């Protein structure tokens, strides 16, 4: 029998008070976004936003608690846009969304930053015994979102990004789970040679932690070869988008190439305000089990498909409760995965 774990891919919407307080404090232009050396009053506002984000997860009863990444103005590009050897260029579109981030132009060596580790240290202070889940962009995605003006070679740049992320993880506090978000791996899949390097890079990042690692993907289903290579990486689970991505293609991939002992299921829509019923979540967990008859999973992670920052806060909170209750129902019904 599988353990069903309710969690999220991180990157929460800011509470509405924080949206207005921080826009008043920071401004609206490119140059006003988080740089890594914020003013004390900005740090204080983010501290209060973090506390609220942690509280809302604990209140909802999620099985993993994330820091919430309130400071990630540039979404998944954040670890680079605050780096001292990265300059931020123009505003560029974030995948196929009406959202934008600053183009991180890497102009020097990707040395240790520690920015994310500091956030997580603050989050730990807010937890009792709740298991912490950390969240990072996967190396392929982070390299894909950035512009390299220093390494000059795609393979070398990807390796440098992986080494950078592994170094950041070294400075993380103890955590139960690490989610590596890799949307680019499916929306802009790597071709021959690059697919193997993407898998190696993920392997290197995953090796930096003792925690369980979930490589979570969204918006599209996998292409076969990148998936087959990813199966060689030392990760505990691959996460699939079962809301937006082509489900038949996803099941075909899993049934053809197998998957890890654990699985991540993106079942709640992070980009639509329609709030799912917990029963629906539980049914979908069972439905996945039906569609993957050959596999048994030790742990099933149940989450949104995408980051939930696209949502207004009221619906976001309702969906956290849906996830927690849906996973509880799936557990109590003893879904055999």
């Amino acid at each position, binding site marked *: 029998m599988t353990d069903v774990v309710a969690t999220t891919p991180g990157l929460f919407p800011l509470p509405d008070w924080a*949206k207005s307080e*921080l826009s008043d404090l*920071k401004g609206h232009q490119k140059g006003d976004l988080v740089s890594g050396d914020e003013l004390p009053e900005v740090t204080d506002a983010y501290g209060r936003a973090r506390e609220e984000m942690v509280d809302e997860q604990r209140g909802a009863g999620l099985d993993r608690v994330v820091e919430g990444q309130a400071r990630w*103005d540039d979404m998944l590009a954040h670890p680079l846009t605050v780096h001292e050897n990265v300059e931020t260029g123009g505003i560029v579109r974030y995948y*196929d969304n*009406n959202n*934008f981030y600053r183009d991180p132009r890497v102009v020097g060596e990707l040395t240790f930053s520690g920015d994310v580790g500091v956030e997580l240290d603050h989050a730990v202070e807010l937890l009792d015994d709740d298991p912490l889940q950390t969240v990072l962009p996967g190396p392929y995605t982070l390299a894909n979102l950035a512009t390299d003006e220093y390494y000059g070679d795609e393979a070398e740049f990807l390796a440098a990004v992986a080494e950078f992320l592994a170094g950041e993880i070294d400075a993380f506090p103890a955590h139960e789970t690490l989610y590596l978000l890799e949307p680019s791996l499916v929306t802009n899949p790597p071709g021959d040679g690059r697919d193997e390097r993407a898998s190696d890079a993920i392997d290197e990042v995953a090796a930096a932690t003792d925690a369980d690692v979930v490589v979570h993907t969204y918006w599209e289903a996998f292409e076969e070869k990148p998936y087959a290579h990813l199966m060689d990486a030392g990760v505990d689970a691959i996460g699939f988008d079962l809301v937006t991505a082509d489900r038949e293609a996803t099941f075909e991939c899993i049934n053809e190439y197998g998957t890890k002992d654990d699985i991540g299921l993106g079942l709640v829509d992070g980009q639509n305000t*329609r709030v799912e019923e917990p029963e629906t979540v539980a049914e979908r967990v069972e439905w996945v089990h039906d569609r993957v008859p050959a596999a048994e999973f030790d742990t099933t992670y149940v989450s949104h498909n995408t980051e939930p920052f696209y949502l207004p806060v*009221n619906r976001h909170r309702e969906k956290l409760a849906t996830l927690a209750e849906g996973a509880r129902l799936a557990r109590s019904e003893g879904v055999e995965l």
Partner: protein
Amino acid sequence: MSRNPGNREGFRPDDHPTEAFLLTTVVGSYPKPRWLNRATDLAEDDDADFDAVDLTEAHDDACRVITHEHERAGLDTVVDGEMRREEMVEFFAGRIDGYEFNGPVKVWGHNYFDKPSVVDEVAYDEPWLVDEFEFTDAVASRPVKVPITGPYTLANWAFNEAYDSDEELSYALADLVNEEVEKLVEAGARYVQIDEPALATTPDDHAIVGECLDRIVSDIPEDVRIGLHVCYGDYSRIYPEINDYPIDEFDVELCNGDYEQIETFADGAFAPDLALGVVDAHTAEVEPVSEIKANIRQGLKVVPPEKLTVSPDCGLKLLPREIAYGKTENMVQAAREVEAELDAGEIDVDDPLATAD
């Protein structure tokens, strides 16, 4: 196929000095007078002695001022600068049954928008724009253009909870836009612009936008000019398909990209009239007349003068007001000078850049 672009002659002023006529217009939004922003804040303040009636009066005043400012700049067709609208989706979603608002969502950094959710079948209740059109038409001495956010953008820039697909929602909204355009035409409107910026982000949906336009223009008389405005996209992905759209005019920003994409349209088969952006909406410097004249000539690569409309790239609302005015005034001046040069045979329309300054 395009409708009846010849209806542009209806907008030629009686005293137009030249044979050539480049219709001058604007996309729609314009910087709000600072006092209007203060009035809006006051209306939201429960402690202030300033209510909805006062705000309506402030809106009326602002519409009057900006309509006249457009006339002073010499435009052939004018807009009220969208003084009553805060945001192009919110404004309409607030007037259409079936939408609800749940709070702000992030666009980028600390820029948010109150992205609505479609929670029920969309339906037409009260007219959206008829009152504002009648007001502006009464204060204007030039023909008034009415910009409306298009159904595809109203669908895609909302959360869709109620329809099986965004396509289905787009068509339902297109029927409502058709109803509104009918009412505007009854009220006397002769120039309507459908704004579809969302098409630029998902150009593969051009057929959906085409079907929406078919529904919008259904039973709308051909003397009513229908424009389509799209901005900041890769146009090779929607051209030549737009030649099949039932529109009179395609309005596009190309000044921002220094006309790199003009060749996309210059295949000699461009069907609707071209409304070309000839001043940049996102630079805070007023382009000199000579530069704008060269930009206008770019348009002649695509269409002959009798099919060329000139406008700014996009709405000017983010600019300082004096810059927006300067751009508009210089744009009209540039158009009038190009018209005179066309009359004098000084521009070779088969090689329009040859005589560029």
